């Protein structure tokens, strides 16, 4: 297939995934900030929402202080924020238009309808909490519909695999970013500087990656920070864990390699990261430092993006 088509499919999936992640981040932050201050401590949750979205620097260039009003607007609707939800949906539709021939009609319909709704219903942002909740649900449902229609209707060929690569790379990045911002509340008890108040932080993290229920199924325990970290990093059964994303990335890259009769640096690099995750346990990670581990992962993950681009997309 055309390199440009593959590139568009890859970015299309990334934009949709990012939009959903932003919606979840806002949703989870709203829940935490709705609690009385005594339960969450003095941290500015809107500030950390910006950090997990990776847009804190650009935000503070034009804003003094982060609060619900301006962060929700910046993450959801701002035209100045290149990865606001609105811009993600706009970019997703533009990408879809340029690769219409590679999309199934269900996928196109999902993106195009979302884009139409964005203009028709959400062009002025949201004014009430209720509105905002509706908007966030709309974004998450768009992502689910898109993902579902890709899964159910696309031929299992390179177009599908490139789209999945985008999805899993973006997802791994998002999960890692949450961990990067919140790692300090995930340290084992003896090293921990916070207190029981952090319970709400943990559940908020899980909620933002839709893993709160999963946690209870997997561990059958009350929330424990190191188990939260274990779930998000190493647990292969949770779709948003780093391990799970890499299982998928390695599989999709292998499928491309087989179809094209050729392996390359992308396959090797992805396998390297997957093997490191497979041979890690939380004890080692805490020993070496969660923060360092996550930062290294984020760098490795974005390096994979560059390698894929060079090998296939240009």
């Amino acid at each position, binding site marked *: *297939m*055309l*390199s*440009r*088509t*593959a590139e568009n499919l890859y970015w299309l999936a990334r934009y949709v995934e990012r939009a959903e992640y932003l919606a979840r981040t806002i949703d989870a932050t709203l829940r935490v900030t709705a609690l009385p201050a005594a339960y969450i401590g003095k941290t500015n949750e809107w500030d950390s929402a910006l950090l997990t979205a990776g847009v804190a620097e650009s935000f503070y260039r034009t804003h003094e202080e982060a609060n619900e009003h301006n962060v929700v607007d910046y993450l959801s609707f701002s035209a100045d924020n290149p990865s606001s939800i609105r811009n993600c949906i706009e970019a997703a539709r*533009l990408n879809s*238009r*340029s690769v*219409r*021939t590679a999309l199934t009609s269900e996928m*196109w*319909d999902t993106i*195009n*309808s979302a884009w*139409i709704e964005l203009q028709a219903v959400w062009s002025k942002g949201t004014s009430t909490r209720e509105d905002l909740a509706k908007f966030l649900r709309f974004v998450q449902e768009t992502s689910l519909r898109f993902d579902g229609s890709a899964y159910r209707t696309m031929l299992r060929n*390179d177009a599908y695999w*490139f789209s999945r690569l985008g999805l899993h790379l973006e997802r791994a990045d998002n999960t890692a970013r949450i961990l990067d911002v919140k790692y300090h509340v995930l340290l084992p008890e003896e090293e921990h500087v916070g207190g029981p108040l952090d319970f709400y932080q943990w559940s908020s993290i899980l909620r933002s990656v839709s893993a709160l229920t999963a946690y209870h199924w997997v561990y059958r325990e009350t929330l424990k920070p190191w188990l939260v970290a274990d779930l998000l990093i190493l647990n292969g059964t949770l779709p948003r864990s780093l391990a799970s994303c890499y299982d998928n990335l390695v599989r999709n890259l292998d499928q*491309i390699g087989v179809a*094209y009769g050729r392996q390359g640096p992308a396959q090797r690099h992805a396998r390297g990261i997957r093997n490191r995750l497979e041979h890690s346990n939380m004890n080692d990670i805490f020993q070496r430092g969660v923060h360092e581990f996550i930062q290294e992962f984020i760098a490795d993950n974005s390096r994979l993006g560059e390698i894929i681009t060079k090998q*296939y*997309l*240009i």
Partner: protein
Amino acid sequence: MAVAFDEMNIPGGDLRPAYQELARWLKETPPEALEYRRQEAELLFRRIGITFAVYGDSESTERLIPFDVIPRIMSGKEWARLENGLKQRVRALNMFLRDIYHGREILRAEIVPDDLIFQNPVFRPEMNGQQVPHDVYVHIAGIDIVRVDAEDFIVLEDNARTPSGVSYMLENREIMMRLFPDLFARHRVAPVERYPDELLAALRSVAPHGASGEPTVALLTPGVYNSAYYEHSFLADKLGVELVEGRDLIVKNNEVFMRTTEGLKRVDVIYRRVDDDFIDPLTFRPDSVLGVPGLMSAYAAGNITLANAVGTGIADDKAIYSYMPDIVKFYLGEEPILKNVPTWRCRESKDLAYVLDNLSELVVKEVHGSGGYGMLIGPAATKATIEAFREKLKREPEGFIAQPTLALSTCPTCTASGLAPRHVDLRPFVLTGSKSTTIVPGGLTRVALKEGSLVVNSSQGGGTKDTWILDE
């Protein structure tokens, strides 16, 4: 202006035969039902994303072309005559182009004046002596047809460069079949859906001689911001070929390749929807980022077929248009089946004098204009507009032609105040491959939605209709 010929109603109350069943159906169908279907159609168009861009319109970069749900109907007999006329016309266009870029017999016979060719910016000296596969220059032609009475078909304009609109012909039919299955059941409408197959067959038949048995075809688009982008992606999808942009193609050793995830892949035939001027920055406009550097040298080497060929603009130029009846006679020795609109060439002083004296009666068009831009419709224009135009015309008479205002035929159309006659034209699409010329029965009917308006261009408030040819 005389009362226009209506394609459904005969003055005195009778109906023309092709419309009898439709008229019965309209009588049985309540107006609300029609309005409901109209809204449904609009929703479908928007959801599918069948939009076009209007240049210079920053408000809404994507718009829908209004769709009128009342079909325009022609009998099989009428179509047969039109079809023969179209084939004849396109054969002549191709022979004319082959002659202009080789022996130039028509110039030596003094049928067409030299300077109209050689001083014409759309004449491409790069094509002199260049062989194109099977001597086909115009693979896809869109010939704009109007009617003024029950007998004749008149050619308003030949489009031999990159005619658009065929996706509307196909989508309009799809949507009509979805919305009005009962109406189809009461008619025998000739299908149009084989157009993509015929187009692909035509394109493959003209692959360069060195191409493999399974030539690779690609559709070259200027990109998502082009007004006809929807059509490009629609056609690429229906043809099952790659939709490429200039940056996806690369020329190496005079062969054309596309960049794929598996490396470079050779392309044999390019159905290009990029104008000559932009197609190769090394040959034409150096500032073009839409084209492919080196494409013209691959073309000269005979390694790629471009459809349509480069330089076809010389055949559909409005200045050449007035010579078309002579061109048909010259190459085919036949009387033209389709008529031309009588045309005054402002470059000729006698014609110019007449035109200047009768501006308020005439339609004056720029020789190199298109899309209905920059033309004067005398009867509809204010005095001031006419005077301004007069100055323009005096300054550069060779840039204009003039024609009488035609009373274009009308068809019943949904309007705010119920069904009413509105002026229409028709663009059928004529395909030419190595062996044959084919036309799917139908075309794009454009309708001027404003009462009394004669401008059917979508960029100026025109809409479209499904076009039915009855298979009797």
